[in-house]
């Protein structure tokens, strides 16, 4: 049985903001199924009482002194933007998305 369906892949692509084509969906669904069946092997390990590791360096809450230092200028920060307007990032409309 497949570990993941074409419909699930389409749903995940939407969640990931990837406007994949029908052809991509066909291809990815099969490939992801193979990958998922392989990685599912982690489930074979008895690990109920094992704490998870998110990170190999056991550091928490690394602080620095709250001293202002120079950062990017507004022009520098906007220098790579596909569209800028009056010193700001300009984006397509965000209201009425459902309309």
């Amino acid at each position, binding site marked *: 049985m497949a570990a*993941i369906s074409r419909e*699930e*892949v389409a749903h*995940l*692509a*939407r*969640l*990931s*903001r*990837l*406007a*994949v*084509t029908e052809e*991509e969906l066909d*291809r*990815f669904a099969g*490939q*992801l199924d*193979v*990958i*998922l069946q*392989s*990685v*599912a*092997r*982690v*489930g*074979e*390990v008895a*690990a109920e009482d*094992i*704490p*998870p*590791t*998110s*990170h*190999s*360096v056991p*550091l928490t809450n*690394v602080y*620095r002194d709250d001293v202002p230092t120079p950062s*990017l200028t507004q022009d*520098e*920060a906007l*220098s*790579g*933007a*596909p*569209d800028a307007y009056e010193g700001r*990032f300009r*984006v*397509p*409309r*965000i209201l*009425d*998305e459902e309309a």
Partner: protein
Amino acid sequence: MSDLTRLSAADLASRIAKREVSAVEVATAHLDRIAAVDERVHAFLHVDREGALAAAKRVDDGEITGPLAGVPIAVKDVLTTKGIPTTAASKILEGWKPPYDATIVERLKNAGMPILGKTNMDEFAMGSSTEYSAYGPTNNPWDLGRIPGGSGGGSAAALAAYEAPLAIGTDTGGSIRQPGAVTGTVGAKPTYGGTSRYGLIAFSSSLDTPGPCGRTVEDTALLHAVIAGHDPRDSTSIQQAVPDVVAAARLGATGDLTGVKLGLVKEFAGDGSEPGVAAAFRESLEALVKLGAEVVEVSCPNFQYALPAYYLIAPSECSSNLARFDGVRYGLRSGDDGSRSLEEVMSLTRDEGFGPEVKRRIILGTYALSSGYYDAYYGQAQKVRTLITRDFQSAFEQVDVLVSPTTPFVAFPFGSRTSDPYQMYLADLFTIPTNLYGGPAISVPCGLAEGLPVGFQIMAPTMADDRMYRVAAALESAVGTFTPPAL
């Protein structure tokens, strides 16, 4: 060909310091070499002739001195370089000129190392062959019809083609070591947190580690010393002194390993290395024993789950990290014709800008992090990560370092593993456990199989990077270095 491109970095640095040769002459020789051969190798995505020569001139003018002053270097295109295009080999960042330097790049500049250019890679460092670069693959200088490894195939190929004496790579699951292995060059993954990630375009933040690449172990150690050390701009940077890797490499080069215990991982034994790779590895192990090392078999029962755990953890982190490519702040924007919403434009931009492997991993990571699947996949993979770390810790109670082949196979022909993505993942079988644990590991050339280079991997405990350099230099002193056929 100019002889200058054949010299080691250590030799070049010494000649430049003694003013036997100028830094500008050295940079020019390498830039000319790039101009002569890179059309065939395609190691570089961008060459900065002007910037490299200006940096070299500052060394000649006496403005900068240091152990590698004047030695040119190639930088993987995943590290930001101020004003110089940085793409991560993705279409989504085509033409982007970052407004700041990565810490690693800043340290190279402060050390007086002219940056020749930016090297090719698999898109966002996801791959083992450079075939996933949006700008076409790099060709292995040993055989132009074969892959140079990945993701850092451009950096490794630049070394093997004598286009640069040193290079910077990044290693998330083997992206420094596997290219080193298949191009007959040296590649070191430092302890995680030992080198700064500031300015490294993030793929999997808990695993990404920048590191040095060279043609000799000593050169690689010299570069390691230049780039490593605490950086307040990276919150996961370790606040400890960097082990003296240069001294360790020089000690190893004396060829004495008396009392050093090498651990052979029992569970790696049956794991499908090509016969030529297995043979070169065995012969190298015998060479190390002749130098006084002792071989001890150790068991790391959870290593067999490293590959599955990695391919859940890394895609999960990547799905989150790559959310920043939204067509707003930098890079590509697609389909913005005034009629479409932000979400539609974002989705079109990301579909056009990302290649297939990146999309696969984003989707896989989104799946593994979904509620309902989180515990079974991402959560379980994190627990396996703990068990793999414990395997390393218990092994290092018995031995000084662990050894294995770097990758199960020699450079493969283009196209032979792209149709089945999981076949590509197997290239990282021996390199991935170290990334999950966070320790350092190095690949050093150890022989040839069917005329192609084989890499020998040495893994050490966290913050004991010096140990792997000692063993690597000893092996190099026993087996020598390997030169590809003339291009």
